[in-house]
């Protein structure tokens, strides 16, 4: 795929047979979109959602464990934050490309950068959420006889929840966005019809169909986490107004 896109030679448009709308490459051919929904768009959308969920799950597991560790052992914050900020500044396309040489055109190559880009956001938000729990509150909990573990799970964690969810929200939209780029090395998700459409001589219907779905997915994941925040942390609502 790489060489096809980069070849400077003009690509001969190949939009297949079909209606005049498709042959003329009109702005958007609704009929083509409907006809190809079940074998082009729907599976790619599902793949995209899976890719996002897996990356988010792994990223959260790592960051959450790291944040808990850093909360207990302060020295750990600096190295982990520095490493994840450094990884965060690498252009995504470059990270995908470099990994192809190591892990090939596989799911792993797509997942490593996606997970990497969630680390900084999730680690920072979780840790800041835990650190911002007022001293008096944990003091009171200790005074009531709660153990360190109980304080963490019953007091600090609920109070850190808004920050953690906000982190998950940003991480989710970031992964949805970068997962489209991942199609460049791992031919799955909504990025793959986009690259396919470009290779076919910029086939508009496919570009708009896949691009539109990716945008909808980004906004939907944003809204989803906003909804989760709204439902799970009712006490923050009163404070905001």
């Amino acid at each position, binding site marked *: 795929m790489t060489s096809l896109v*980069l070849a400077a030679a003009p690509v001969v448009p190949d939009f297949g047979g079909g209606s005049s709308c498709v042959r003329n490459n009109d*702005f958007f051919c609704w009929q083509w979109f409907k006809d190809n929904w079940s074998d082009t768009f729907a599976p790619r959308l599902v793949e995209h959602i899976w890719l996002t969920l897996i990356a988010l799950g792994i990223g959260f597991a790592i960051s959450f464990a790291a944040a808990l560790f850093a909360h207990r052992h302060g020295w750990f914050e600096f190295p982990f934050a520095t490493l994840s900020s450094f990884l965060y*500044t690498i*252009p995504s*396309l470059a990270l995908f490309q470099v990994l192809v040489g190591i892990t090939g055109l596989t799911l792993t190559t797509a997942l490593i950068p996606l997970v990497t880009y969630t680390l900084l956001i999730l680690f920072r938000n979780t840790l800041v959420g835990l650190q911002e729990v007022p001293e008096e509150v944990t003091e009171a909990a200790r005074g009531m006889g709660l153990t360190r573990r109980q304080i963490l799970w019953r007091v600090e964690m609920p109070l850190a929840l808004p920050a953690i969810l906000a982190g998950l929200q*940003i991480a989710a*939209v970031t992964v949805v966005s970068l997962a*489209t780029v991942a199609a460049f090395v791992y031919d799955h998700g909504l990025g793959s019809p986009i690259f396919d459409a470009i290779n076919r001589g910029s086939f508009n219907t496919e570009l708009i169909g896949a*691009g539109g779905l990716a*945008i909808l997915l980004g906004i939907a994941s944003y809204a989803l986490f906003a909804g989760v925040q709204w439902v799970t942390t009712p006490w923050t609502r009163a404070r905001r107004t």
Partner: protein
Amino acid sequence: MVTATIFSFYSDHASELVDKSIWTLKLFAAAFGLSVLIAVPIGVWLGHIHKGRFLAINLSNIGRALPSLAVIAIGIAIFGLGFLNVTVALIVIAVPVILTNAYVAVDGVDRELIEAARGMGMSGLQTLFRVELPLALPLLFAGMRTAALYVMATTPLAAVVGAPGGLGDIIANQASYRFEGVVAASLLIALLAFAVDGLFALLQRYATPRSLRGRQKYEVKGTALEAG
């Protein structure tokens, strides 16, 4: 050993790298410059009249949720392949961040100071330019710096969406340029981003009134979290 091959890549491809860097900077300048021209006046004005809060805040949230490649894909259908389309896509991505920060910066200026300025007989515009804007500058610049980094990090995508010419060509073409080429070009992008960020830090310093320098804490929390 790897470092040596990266260095030799720089010397072997010097003129090509310069050309591609210039192209990348042109793309960056066009997209970022236009974004600032669009977003700063609107954000500052909305903040000045304290209206449109809902729009200004949610715009940046929606902007954050837009996948850059998807925006570029739709742009291709509208503007065709090439420089223009990528520029427009980068503007779509950068404007929300700058606009929201500009709005929050001006809107958040202490109301008592504005009252005082009014009481001294300043007109609305005088208040804006002499009181609100100077106080808003640090946060305004913070938004621009975030957007600048974001735009620079996204420029390599141009290479895979039919707008060749920049450093992304090297990053996207490992088959020809090898591992060291990808790393060398990525480092160059990071260097350009770093240089632009440094330039803005300087501008910010000179634009901030002397009496405010060093007192305002640089506010980046929650805004710098975007990847390209």
